[in-house]
C-alpha cells in the first residue's frame, strides 16, 4: 500500500525548510528532497516545541490540567479547554447549566473565527500577498478585545473550568459581539475581493495538493482539510456536544480535494460561525454559569474520551483515571499531528512554491503538532 519512499539519487537537492523558516509559522522542520523545483519527498522532523503536555498533565489535578491545553493549539485554546472540561464532566457526570453551555459555544465560535481570520491572513502571506494579513488582524483584534473583557486574557483564556465557565459574561459582551458581527459582515466581502477572486491566487490554489477522499480518511485528516476532500467529519454535526445539536448551521463540504477547496471550506466556515453567533447572542439563557462542584475533583476509575471540533479538526482527549486526583494518562489526539502526516503524500510531485500553499491550507499550528 506504500508508495516508494523517495530515495536520494544524484542530482537531488536536499534542503532543510525550518525550523526557522517564514512559511512554517513556527518551528516545524521539513527535510525536502527536490529534483530541481519539484518535490520528491517531505520528511517532517518535530519536537522543537515539544513540552510533553501529556506527561505534565499526569501530575496536574483535574482543574489544573485544563489550562495547560491552551498551550497546545494556541489559536483555538478555548476549544482545547472545552474538550478537557468535557472529559472531566463526562467522568464526574456533571450537568453543565444551560447558560454555561451557551457561553462555551459562543466562545468556541468566536475562537474559531479568530483562528480562521489569522489563517486567512497567514495563508495569503504564504502565497505572497502581504496586505491581507493586516486586514485580517483588524477584525481579529475585535474578537481579542471581547475575549479580554470577558475572560481576562486575549489568547490563552483559561475561561473554562469543570462544570461551566470561570466567571460570568461581562455586561458589555452582547453589545460588543453585535458590533463585531456588523463589522465583520461588512469586511468579509473585502476578503473575497482581495484574495478569493484574485486570478493569481486561484491559479496558485486550484489543482494543487490533491488529497482524495480515501486518502484523507486513511491519513486521519480531519477538520476543514478533510472536508475539502468531501469527507463529512464535523464533530459538531456528527457527535454533537453541548448545544450544537440544536443549532442551525451547515457542515461545509467541498469535493475538489485541492488547496482551493480547503480554502473555500475554511472561508465558508467563517460565515457559518458568524451565523451560530448570531443565533445565540440574543438567546443566552439566565441562570448559573457554573455547576456546583467539589473543591477537589476525583474522577472514578475508568476511561473517558471526548472529541470536539477545533478550528483545525478533531481534537480528542483520551483520559484514563485510576480514581485519584490526577489523571493516570492523558492522550491528546491533536488535529495538526494527523493532518501533518498527509503532507508528504499531498506535496509529492508539486513545486516548492506549492508546498507553502499546501501547508497554508492545512493550517498547521506547530505547538499543536508537538504538544
Amino acid at each position, binding site marked *: 500500500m506504500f508508495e516508494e519512499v523517495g530515495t536520494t539519487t544524484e542530482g537531488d537537492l536536499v534542503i532543510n525548510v525550518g525550523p526557522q523558516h517564514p512559511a512554517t509559522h513556527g518551528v516545524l522542520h521539513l527535510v525536502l528532497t527536490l529534483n530541481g523545483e519539484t518535490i520528491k519527498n517531505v520528511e517532517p522532523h518535530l519536537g522543537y516545541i515539544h513540552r510533553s503536555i501529556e506527561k505534565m498533565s499526569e501530575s*496536574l489535578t483535574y*482543574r*489544573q*490540567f485544563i*489550562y*495547560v491545553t491552551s498551550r497546545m493549539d494556541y489559536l483555538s485554546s478555548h476549544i482545547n479547554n472545552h474538550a478537557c472540561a468535557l472529559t472531566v464532566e463526562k467522568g464526574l457526570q456533571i450537568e453543565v447549566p444551560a447558560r454555561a453551555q451557551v457561553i462555551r459555544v459562543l466562545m468556541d465560535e468566536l475562537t474559531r473565527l479568530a483562528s480562521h481570520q489569522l489563517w486567512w491572513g497567514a495563508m495569503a502571506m504564504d502565497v505572497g500577498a502581504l*496586505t491581507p494579513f493586516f486586514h485580517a488582524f*483588524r477584525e481579529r*483584534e475585535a474578537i481579542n478585545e471581547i475575549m*479580554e*473583557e*470577558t*475572560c*481576562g*486574557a486575549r489568547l*490563552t483564556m*483559561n475561561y473554562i*473550568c469543570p462544570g461551566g465557565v*470561570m*466567571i460570568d459574561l*461581562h455586561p458589555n459582551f452582547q453589545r460588543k459581539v453585535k458590533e463585531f458581527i456588523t463589522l465583520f459582515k461588512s469586511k468579509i466581502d*473585502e476578503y473575497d*475581493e*482581495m*484574495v478569493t*477572486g*484574485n*486570478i*493569481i491566487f*486561484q491559479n496558485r490554489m486550484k489543482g494543487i495538493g490533491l488529497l482524495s477522499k480515501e486518502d484523507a480518511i486513511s491519513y486521519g485528516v480531519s477538520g476543514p482539510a478533510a472536508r475539502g476532500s468531501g469527507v463529512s467529519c464535523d464533530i459538531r454535526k456528527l457527535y454533537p456536544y453541548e448545544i450544537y445539536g440544536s443549532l442551525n448551521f451547515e457542515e461545509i463540504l467541498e469535493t475538489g480535494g485541492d488547496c482551493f477547496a480547503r480554502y473555500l471550506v475554511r472561508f465558508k466556515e467563517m460565515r457559518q460561525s458568524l451565523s451560530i453567533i448570531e443565533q445565540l447572542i440574543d438567546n443566552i439563557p439566565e441562570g448559573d454559569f457554573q455547576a456546583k462542584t467539589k*473543591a477537589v475533583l476525583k474522577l472514578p476509575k475508568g476511561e473517558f474520551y471526548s472529541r470536539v471540533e477545533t478550528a483545525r479538526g478533531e481534537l480528542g482527549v483520551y483520559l484514563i483515571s485510576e480514581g485519584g486526583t490526577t489523571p493516570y494518562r492523558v492522550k491528546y489526539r491533536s488535529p495538526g499531528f494527523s493532518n501533518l502526516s498527509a503532507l508528504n503524500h499531498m506535496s509529492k510531485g508539486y513545486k516548492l512554491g506549492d508546498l507553502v500553499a499546501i501547508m497554508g491550507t492545512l493550517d498547521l499550528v506547530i505547538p499543536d503538532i508537538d504538544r
Partner: protein
Amino acid sequence: MFIVDYIKEVYGAVKSLLTGMNRTGYYFTHHKEIITQEYPDNKDTLVLSERFRGEVVMKHDENNEHACTGCTACELACPNATIKIITKFDVTPEGKKKKAIDTFVYHLELCTMCNLCVEACPTGAITMAQTFEHSVTDRSKLIKKLNQPGSKIREGVE
C-alpha cells in the same frame, strides 16, 4: 468559440486584479481606516478591561490589613508552583497560638496568569492586577512578596 472564451478569461483575470487594486487603493487614500495604536504615547488613555490578568496582587485596605489566612489553597491550586506561602504563629491577646502568614512569595516568572489561585482563595485575599509591563533586567526581581511589610490579617477573617 475559442477566441471569445480566451478574451472572457483575460477580461475576468484583469477584472479580478483590478478589484484587488481598488481595495488597496481605497485604503491607501482613506487614512481614517488606519488602526495603528501608538503604544507608549497613548498610555494615558489606554483602558484595560478590569478582568485583564496581569499579575497576582494581594488586596490591602487603608489600615494595611489583608484577608489572607495562610490556608495555602492558592499554593495547592497553582499548576506551576508560582506561589509559596511561609506561615508563622501569632500569639493572640488571649494567649492562643494562631497561624498567620509570614511571607506570601509570588514568582511572577513562573506565573501563567491562569486565575486558578484567585478562584481557589476562600477569603478573596488575592486578585489579578491589570499591570502588564513586567520586564526587568534581573530575573530575581520577578520574585515578589505580596503582603506589605507590617500588614496583618483583617479582623474577622477566618
